[in-house]
């Protein structure tokens, strides 16, 4: 993916113009005369140039748009160059202050602000980076270095290591999938972040600086410590970033751990620094190659900057716990849990994780994508199946069905690997983009499911699969690949709805309908899992009957065991979600029915229930299965037409009790599926522990959902009480209830995916 506002540099014009000094000819008069002949509003324009593009043009001589604009009366020299002398002596306090200011700007850049409004407003950095230094020696503040080593050594080492750290961050982010200007601004304004210089130089310089600071016996001890820990941070942070993907081999968290330990020292000494605001200037924007209007300097507080860096380090440390592959479902759970942390891990972490998840068609640098795909199939639909075991290496006779199966499966792998890995990788995008991306991929998966179905038919013939008699009497086949694809699709549909709650997409009046739809998807999914289970049970039975070889059987039974446990876990999770959704649906129906629910749309709003439903179902319209629920049916079902208040109340209470139990069971099952003995379906050797920090995230998430369950039962009880006091509410005598929908981030919104209304009795006026 190309960064979308990449500035493509035309060839250096200065040089070209100089050569072909083919005297430019003055056409002012002709041009002016010709232009004056045009009618007002008449344009002469390039055919391919659209007015839409023209809107994006920067207006020269407009102070708001033209970054090079110098107001009349403003001194040209002063407007372009700052009076600030980079050689002026600074006190240690000022140097500490400067370092912290720079760190704030660095973190602001990490948070997604452009360099032009952050680091590139620093006069010191500007001097270091322009003209572009070719060697380490070139990268200095002035041609004649300051006599004070505090500046020429300590501050310079800090600045250089900072720039190099930015270089590593920039390089990692721009090679991965991210959204320009949403997650990160990659623009470098034709400057270079010292990418050509080897990191070893920077480490050496930092060591020298630390040595110098240590030798300053006359300097105040607090300030020496403050300088020291800042230099150490640069050292450790640079090593950590330098490690990048090598972490797959080193498996070391040392650098990030040391970063964290220096951070506490920095936090304690922030107060010792004196900021030097004069050392930062917006005027530098007048000299940066930039296609955007001038914009103000971004200021973030040292507390926020340090908190951001601390989280980055902690996320990086925790991420390393999941580098051991422990089967597909565990891998997916770990990734989703880590990336669902609040606040979401920074863009650098998300990009690093993308590269770790898959590069060169290898998962976590160890498992080929094909293996990952096969493991997932084995876990869900095909434990110990000939379809996954067949390969063309062992059977070379083209007429042999096993050879043909292997060929068919090769085709499947080619087609499905990328989309499958992408379903995992999508979690690395920012939250809004995850939902948007899934809305698109869910349609692809609908097509994939159909393709898989055709493959299933071929494979069923080749593997001579015996049909199964269903309850209704008709016979049917397992369709493993398309079952698996359908499962993927149902997960995605559920995610779209749930992230809709997280992203506050739905209005209060839509919540009843959306929770109804969520439960509808869950029950469809549960039915599908039942079907899969039926076929796995049958396969296991066949297996046991024909079992001859004992040694192979233990492996087989482990594979089946793992598959059954996976199905059980997914089922538990779905039951929990389903029950909770049913309860909230019923609760919202009651609140809507008695008109106590706040409403986002005004009385004369254009929107109607039908239009809103159409809008919400838009991603699902092209999908063939599950079929779209027609609006009339949706309206009838989601409003629980014909059910009395008492029945609905009963439904809510029952469901919420069931939900609480189910979430409890889910919690007791834990985040990860443990390896049952040896020789399970996956190719990994097991070994290390499960990622405990990520397991904590997962547990916290489940506990939050349980808290939301409790909140919902309280709300249901409050409604029951109000209905008991006023069994036949009417327009004259409405229910004496006050309902608020807790916003995301507020304390009473226990879980992003569960919008539990707060219902309370109205105070008597």
């Amino acid at each position, binding site marked *: 993916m190309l960064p979308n506002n990449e*500035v*493509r*540099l*035309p060839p250096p*014009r*200065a040089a070209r*113009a100089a050569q072909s000094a*083919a005297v*430019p*000819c*003055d*056409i*002012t008069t*002709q*041009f*002016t*005369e*010709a*232009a*004056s*002949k*045009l*009618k*007002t*509003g*008449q*344009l*002469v*324009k*390039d055919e391919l*140039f659209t007015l839409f*593009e*023209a809107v*994006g*043009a*920067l*207006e*020269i*001589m407009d102070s708001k748009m033209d*970054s*090079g*604009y*110098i107001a009349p009366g403003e001194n*040209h*020299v002063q407007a*372009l*160059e700052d009076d600030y002398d980079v050689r002026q002596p600074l006190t240690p306090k000022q140097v500490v202050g400067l370092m912290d200011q720079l760190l704030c700007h660095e973190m602001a850049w990490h948070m997604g602000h452009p360099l032009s409004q952050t680091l590139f407003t620093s006069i010191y950095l500007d001097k270091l980076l322009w003209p572009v230094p070719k060697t380490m020696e070139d990268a200095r503040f002035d*041609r004649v270095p300051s006599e004070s080593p505090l500046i020429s050594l300590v501050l310079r080492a800090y600045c250089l290591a900072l720039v190099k750290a930015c270089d590593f961050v920039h390089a990692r982010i721009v090679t991965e999938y991210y959204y320009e200007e949403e997650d990160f601004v990659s623009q470098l304004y*034709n400057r270079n972040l010292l990418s050509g210089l080897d990191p070893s130089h920077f480490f050496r310089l930092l060591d020298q600086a630390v040595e110098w600071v240590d030798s300053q016996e006359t300097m105040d001890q607090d300030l020496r410590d403050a300088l020291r820990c800042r230099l150490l941070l640069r050292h450790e942070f640079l090593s950590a970033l330098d490690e990048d993907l090598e972490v797959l081999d080193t498996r070391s968290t040392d650098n990030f751990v040391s970063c964290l330990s220096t951070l506490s020292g920095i936090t304690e000494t922030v107060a010792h620094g004196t900021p030097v605001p004069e050392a930062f200037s917006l005027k530098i924007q007048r*000299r*940066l*190659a*930039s*296609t955007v209007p001038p914009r103000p300097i971004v200021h973030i507080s040292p507390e926020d900057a340090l908190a951001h860096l601390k989280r980055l380090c902690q996320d990086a440390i925790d991420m390393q716990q999941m580098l051991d592959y422990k089967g597909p479902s565990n891998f997916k759970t770990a990734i989703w849990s880590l990336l669902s942390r609040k606040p979401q891990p920074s863009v650098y972490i998300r990009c690093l994780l993308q590269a770790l998840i898959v590069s060169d068609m290898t998962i976590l640098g160890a498992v080929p994508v094909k293996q990952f795909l096969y493991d997932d199939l084995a876990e869900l639909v095909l434990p110990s199946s000939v379809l996954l075991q067949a390969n063309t290496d062992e059977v070379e006779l083209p007429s042999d069905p096993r050879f043909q199966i292997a060929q068919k499966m090769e085709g499947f792998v080619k087609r499905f690997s990328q989309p499958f890995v992408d379903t995992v990788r999508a979690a690395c995008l920012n939250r809004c983009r995850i939902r948007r991306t899934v809305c698109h991929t869910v349609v692809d998966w609908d097509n994939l499911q159909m393709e898989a179905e055709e493959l299933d038919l071929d494979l069923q013939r080749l593997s001579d699969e015996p049909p199964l008699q269903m309850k209704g009497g008709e016979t049917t086949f397992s369709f493993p690949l398309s079952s698996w694809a359908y499962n993927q699709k149902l997960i995605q549909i559920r995610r779209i709805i749930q992230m809709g709650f997280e992203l506050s997409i739905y209005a209060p009046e839509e919540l009843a309908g959306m929770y109804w739809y969520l439960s509808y998807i869950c029950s469809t999914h549960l039915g599908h899992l039942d079907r899969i289970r039926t076929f796995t049970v049958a396969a296991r039975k066949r297996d046991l009957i024909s079992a001859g070889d004992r040694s192979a059987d233990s492996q087989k039974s482990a594979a089946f065991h793992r598959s059954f446990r996976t199905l059980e876990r997914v089922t538990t999770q779905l039951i929990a979600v389903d029950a909770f959704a049913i309860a909230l649906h019923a609760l919202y129906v009651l609140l809507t029915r008695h008109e106590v629910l706040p409403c986002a749309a005004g009385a004369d709003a254009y929107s109607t229930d039908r239009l809103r439903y159409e809008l919400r179902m838009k991603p699902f319209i092209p999908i063939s299965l599950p079929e779209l629920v027609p609006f009339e049916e949706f309206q009838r079902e989601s409003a629980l037409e014909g059910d009395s208040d008492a029945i609905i109340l009963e439904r809510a209470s029952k469901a919420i009790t069931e939900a609480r139990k189910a979430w409890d069971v889910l919690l007791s099952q834990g985040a990860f599926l443990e390896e049952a003995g040896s020789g399970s379906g996956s190719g990994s050797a097991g070994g290390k522990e499960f990622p405990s920090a990520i397991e904590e995230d997962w547990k916290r998430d489940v506990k939050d959902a349980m808290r939301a369950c409790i909140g919902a039962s309280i709300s249901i009880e409050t409604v029951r009480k109000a209905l008991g006091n006023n069994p036949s509410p009417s327009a004259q005598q409405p229910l004496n209830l006050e309902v608020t929908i807790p916003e995301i981030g507020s304390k009473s919104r226990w879980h992003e995916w569960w919008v539990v209304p707060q219902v309370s009795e109205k105070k008597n006026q």
Partner: protein
Amino acid sequence: METGHAVQYLEGLLGRSLRVHTTDSRMFVGIFKCTDAERNLILANSLEYRFPTPSAVETAAKELESWDNASEAAKATVKVNMTSRLIGLIVIPGRHITKIELE
């Protein structure tokens, strides 16, 4: 010049590289994309050129001095490139234009 002629002339310039000088002594070089009756100009892929600041001239002069201590004449004609930067798609309002050149 008639309107038809005028349009033809201007259309002939589309896609060519123009140098446009503005009232604040800057110069912009870019591909001519669009104009109107008020002589507002739209240039694509533009570079902004600015005369070097006195301090830059001074630095260059010093540099030259340190390289060769030659004649006074050489020192008098220090050559300093105009500073340039890419600013992309721009519109220059006609009232700020002092001179238009064709490259």
